[in-house]
């Protein structure tokens, strides 16, 4: 997800976001941090290994039990007498199995300590690829945050709007935003913005907005082009200009009337 420059500037001016200098915030990890990181990783792997062993052992026992029960029930069906004789043996067997599993677990634990988890059959730890850097000790944005446009500008982090055209676009954008429109990029529809009556996730846009210099001369061909663009996608084409003298926006909408 990327923000439009208009959105960044607006959110910054409203104090909703701060800009972070990412390059400076990601420092080189120190030796201590590297060691700590490696320890943490192996600890996490160990925990996963323990859970894995516990899980497989339980599964094994369950399967064994099921098998015994199965045998038993078959025996019951066949010869009941023999079944009675077998059951004590069965218990013994269970004990042996339990002992074996105990030994196995001990073995595993000792292997664990030596951190040779990869040797255990069937075990592959789940690795988490971090999205954010915030959990890293070598990431620190303190002192690299800029809460205003001026501060960000001074540090060459944010320079938009820099041209007259950008400024006009931003003025129009803010005016429309203040009117409650949801605004996205309009490049796919041949305009600067698309205006939505509600969240674009759920609603269709109604207007294609283009920002023009107030002194721009529009040819009849332009008008036909704009009208055609809007009509084919069932939207109204909106021409927007910023009146510098009166410090307000001027809007005109183009729509084919549908008469013949």
């Amino acid at each position: 997800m990327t923000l439009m420059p208009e959105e960044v500037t607006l959110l910054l001016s409203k104090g909703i976001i701060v800009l972070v200098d990412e390059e400076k915030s990601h420092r080189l990890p120190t030796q201590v941090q590297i060691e700590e990181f490696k320890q943490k990783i192996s600890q996490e792997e160990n925990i996963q290994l323990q859970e894995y062993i516990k899980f497989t052992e339980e599964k094994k026992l369950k399967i064994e039990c099921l098998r015994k029960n199965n045998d038993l029930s078959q025996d019951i069906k066949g010869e009941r007498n023999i079944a009675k004789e077998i059951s004590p043996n069965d218990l013994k067997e269970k004990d042996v199995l339990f002992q074996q599993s105990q030994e196995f677990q001990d073995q595993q634990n000792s292997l664990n300590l030596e951190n040779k988890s990869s040797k255990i059959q069937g075990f592959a730890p789940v690795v988490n690829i971090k999205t954010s850097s915030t959990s890293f000790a070598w990431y620190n944005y303190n002192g690299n945050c800029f809460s205003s446009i001026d501060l960000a500008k001074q540090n060459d982090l944010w320079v938009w709007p820099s041209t007259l055209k950008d400024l006009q676009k931003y003025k129009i954008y803010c005016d429309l935003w203040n009117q409650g429109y949801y605004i996205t990029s309009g490049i796919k529809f041949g305009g600067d913005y698309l205006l939505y009556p509600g969240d674009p996730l759920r609603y269709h846009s109604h207007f294609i907005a283009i920002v023009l210099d107030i002194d721009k001369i529009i040819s009849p061909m332009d008008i036909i082009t704009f009208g055609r663009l809007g009509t084919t996608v069932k939207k109204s084409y909106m021409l927007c200009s910023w009146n510098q003298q009166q410090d307000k926006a001027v809007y005109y909408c183009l729509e084919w009337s549908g008469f013949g």
Partner: protein
Amino acid sequence: MQNTKGNIEEINEQEDDINQEIDYISLFAKEKTKVRGIPKRGSKDFEPDGSENQHDALTSSLNALQNALSEERNVSSRQLCKAIWHRAPISKAMITVSKGSHFHNMGHAIKGKMWLYPEECLFLMDRCSLSMQYCGVDMSLQHAYCEIIGEWLTLEKYQVYAYLKRIGFTVLRAQPSPSSSTNTSVCSQSQPLIQTPSHTNATSHQLQQLQLPWFLNRINSFIISPFIYITNLLNSSSVLSSRKSANKKEDQSLVVPGEYRTYEQVYKKLQIIKSSSITHCHNIDVDVEDEGYNIDFLVYKESAPGKFKKKNPGSPLFHVVVASAETQKPPSLPTLCNLFNSFPSSSQTNSSQSLESQSPSQLSTRKNILFAIVDGSNISFLEYNDIMFDNIHVNLISDHVEKKMRY
């Protein structure tokens, strides 16, 4: 009234499909059968009406979006490749653990080691296939974007690369070919395209040359016009003289009386300006300012492991140029010429395979360049074609008759 509204919605839905918005609800719908490929957006409403229904739908959409964004990448180490990032000036990652079949169409080997370009690293990380380390610690995606985007790989280029990869294409970096745009020898071997008497003003001449191919195509289409027009030209001297004045050869007609068996012969005479195609525009000044347009990626069709050869991939389906809507202007004609001349034309069959629905103008396509215009998170693809207009013949009915008569 309701009918029209329904209509509007229907059309809007179709139109909005161009938007690359995703319905995040479908992404996490487990009970439904999962749709293959990139999830598409579901239906939308015309406008908010304040109803409970709409409110709930919006809330669930927002929640789905939130879930999608906060989803952590957890993957079994059995499927995970590992690599070590080497910072600038190397700016590549070396594979230490290789899993899966990613490297049949990604990565490149140097002295027995597999290396990844930055865009390949980011893409594999993004889709849970690669864990990268640097200086002995893991890299987060946040860090990777900060570290890797830069130099050649702009955010726009990565967006285009990732998009094309995600929809299944094999994408390779375009290696600068020896006959690329910086080659000035192309312009030195200029062949005179214009056969009209030379203008005295050098600058206006240059200007005319710059606009040539488009301008020429117009003239060409003008020339291929009904028979009556030509006979008029042949017979009526008054029309001719008015045409002649433009030509400055006052006393000679373009088509002198003689034997003409086909229209073709007459057309040739009438063609005072030879037509040109963009791939043969040698005499256009190639040394224009660099507008930052280069062939960035070569796109091949989906490839199965073992069938695709990285070293000999064949001819690509598309040559992709990445453009930034915010910082770049549309390419100038010389820039387009350079781009078209920077690669050999692919075979006819190849290009026809790539175009699912061919419009008439694409029938004789030899070369095409795909411009990927990135605006924020939107990517629009525009295709530039060299349609070889001078090879297109308009079949007049009488022309057929004439041919039949000759046999």
